[in-house]
């Protein structure tokens, strides 16, 4: 089959690889109809996440048709159309039973790597380094899906791929970011980052009862999309974020702040240079500018919800602000399986149509081009969907023709 493989820093290539097969009794094989490039794939692309090996198949947002099931998978049949959640979860361990699926104790064979890096390991994730298990990802024609009786959710044929695909990651992730804010009626929520996850946090915050959402980014088309979702916006390249937020909230600060940015934050001025240098010298692995700012801006007794991905250690963390002002920090990789069914219900009810976030659809063969435009935010790119079925001519010539701009 064809699959998009990580070959080194900022190098991906679509290659011929063996077809997947059932290795465990609860596996299913899914023929992929749509798969997306996630913002967190850029952390791999930019080689900020360790334990990648050349040839690793990328991709953890995918859906398609079940073509084979292991003998213990009884809830799925060949032909079912399913969306696959990015965490791989056994459904039977201590954490899965508490619905903390991204902390599954059994799905990460390389747990020792996580123990060395983080003290404890988290669940396996598709196509997301060996630290999270070393599972082949879903930017491919087929994928092996372990614990298929727990993860994949069947979707009705009346909904398009673009409407349900994001149940695999960014919709539940953005939603959990908002849910962790314990939103009460009348709350003002500030959201750092208006990438795809930020967009879903904005809409989820409103769904959960927020009165005002203030979104922070610097990319004009992302800010526009945030406004379309009902948010007020701050362009951090033009405005001092702290001053703007204090003015908008009468000096009290937002009730909760969501960090939808993670480890590769940008910031104006010297602090960005400081973090870039420390990161380059391996003195810190992550650039936590958004997180620092969110902490300083949050109102006393408020909540900091960290859903953007961090990978290692940071520097100049304002713990004094957190402690003296009774802040609560909540965080985690999304427990996607927990949210898929209720969020599908919202989509079916017409409360939200996640396809708004898609800006580019192209053939899987053009994955490398998709990564480039997504990374550099060229061509107003916000979200790229790759179609293994689409007629892609695997050459640069094909790009112009195959790229549909919405």
């Amino acid at each position: 089959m064809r699959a998009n493989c990580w070959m080194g820093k900022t190098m991906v290539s679509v290659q011929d690889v063996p077809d997947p097969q059932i290795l465990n009794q609860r596996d299913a094989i899914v023929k992929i109809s749509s798969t997306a490039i996630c913002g967190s794939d850029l952390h791999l692309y930019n080689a900020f996440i360790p334990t990648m090996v050349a040839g690793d198949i990328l991709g953890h947002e995918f859906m398609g048709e079940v073509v084979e099931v292991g003998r213990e998978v009884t809830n799925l049949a060949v032909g079912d159309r399913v969306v696959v959640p990015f965490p791989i979860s056994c459904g039977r361990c201590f954490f899965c039973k508490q619905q903390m699926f991204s902390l599954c104790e059994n799905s990460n064979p390389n747990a020792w790597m996580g123990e060395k890096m983080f003290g404890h390991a988290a669940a396996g994730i598709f196509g997301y380094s060996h630290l999270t298990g070393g599972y082949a990802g879903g930017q491919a024609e087929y994928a092996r899906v372990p614990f298929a009786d727990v993860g994949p959710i069947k979707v009705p044929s009346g909904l398009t791929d673009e409407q349900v695909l994001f149940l695999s990651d960014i919709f539940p992730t953005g939603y959990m970011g908002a849910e962790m804010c314990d939103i009460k009626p009348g709350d003002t929520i500030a959201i750092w980052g208006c990438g795809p996850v930020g967009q879903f946090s904005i809409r989820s915050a409103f769904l959960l009862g927020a009165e005002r959402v203030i979104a922070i980014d610097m990319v004009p088309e992302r800010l526009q999309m945030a406004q379309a979702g009902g948010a007020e916006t701050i362009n951090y390249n033009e405005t001092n974020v702290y001053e703007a937020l204090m003015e908008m909230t009468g000096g009290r600060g937002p009730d909760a702040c969501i960090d939808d940015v993670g480890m590769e934050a940008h910031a104006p001025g010297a602090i960005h240079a400081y973090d870039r240098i420390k990161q380059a010298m391996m003195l810190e692995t992550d650039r936590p500018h958004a997180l620092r700012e969110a902490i300083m801006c949050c109102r006393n007794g408020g909540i900091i919800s960290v859903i953007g991905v961090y990978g290692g250690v940071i520097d100049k963390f304002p713990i004094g602000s957190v402690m003296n002002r009774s802040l609560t920090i909540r965080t985690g990789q999304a427990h996607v399986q927990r949210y898929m069914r209720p969020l599908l219900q919202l989509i079916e009810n017409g409360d939200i149509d996640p396809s708004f976030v898609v800006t580019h659809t192209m053939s899987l063969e053009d994955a490398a081009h998709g990564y480039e435009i997504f990374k550099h935010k060229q061509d107003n790119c916000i979200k790229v969907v790759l179609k293994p079925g689409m007629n892609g001519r695997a050459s640069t010539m094909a790009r112009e023709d195959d790229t549909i701009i919405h």
Partner: protein
Amino acid sequence: MAARQQDTSLSNATNYSSQRFQPGLPSENGKRLARGLGWFSLGLGITELLAPKFIASISGVSPRRTGMIRLYGLREIASGIGIFAQKNPAQAMWSRVAGDVMDLTSLGIACTAPDAKTGRITFATANVLAVTALDVIAAKQLSGGKKGVHASASCIVNAQPEEVYRFWREFTNLPRFMEHLESVTELGEGRSHWIAKGPAGMKVEWDAMIVADEPGRVITWRSLENSDVDNAGAVRFEAAAGGRGTIIKVNIQYNPPGGVVGATVAKLFGEEPNQQLEDDLRRFKQVIELGEVVVSDATIFGVGYFDQRPAQPPAPGELERAESLPPQVPAGERPLGRSAEEPFAGRRIQQ
């Protein structure tokens, strides 16, 4: 008054000590002796460095040898520092023994020199021999703990101690999660025959007997005579707090033999025996909770750093080379940790 039940198998200390799994710690006597010899080293070294002619004269060595005596002084100072710098100075003590051999050799050579003062050299040799004896004693005492290799690890599983005990007590189950075990055969009367896989088709075999066996609590075993590798192990089962399953604690000790078998055994247990045992226990947890070992594309040949292959599906030939795959699940067997499945219906969204 009911007699308190005596626990013969475990030290029931409630105060956790990180040393409890390392029975072979360096002896206090050896340490004290080593410290004395360390001061001796420093004193002699400084004298040799600053007053080599004096040393030459009292030991009867030719005064033309002062350059070499100065070098020996540096060596003495280095071993002295080594003794004080290391927590367990066994290595520094063995280097002192090596230095003693050098001294003795030099004194032997000095004897043959035309201007040798044989009487003084004999006196010096006797002194060095006495010090050598002390060095060997200290080095041996300090190395006592290094003889056996110990590994310990623990894990927690979602099953009752009795169930987990029963699974482990069936030793033929062990190769399902212990990567290096090829087979265990029950011989009856608490005896069993174990075969471990080595590199290049090598096999290491031993017979073991059960030493203690308390259902739901503990199993200990040790190898019998004529084993390829002398070894012993203990596995304990404790109910986790709050009824959250069972905590399993495993200790394994083995004395590596010499020769080819020793090299094979060393390879088997690798550089980090604790890590290997932890990986085995992780697979044990998977077998108990899920009924089989979970494999990812990257870990088909094992979970070690050098076992990783790219995260892409294996080619058919590759899968055949992966010895542990596909995981052998006896047909019809259900995992212990499996409770009645209640389908997860998602939860309500507050709106």
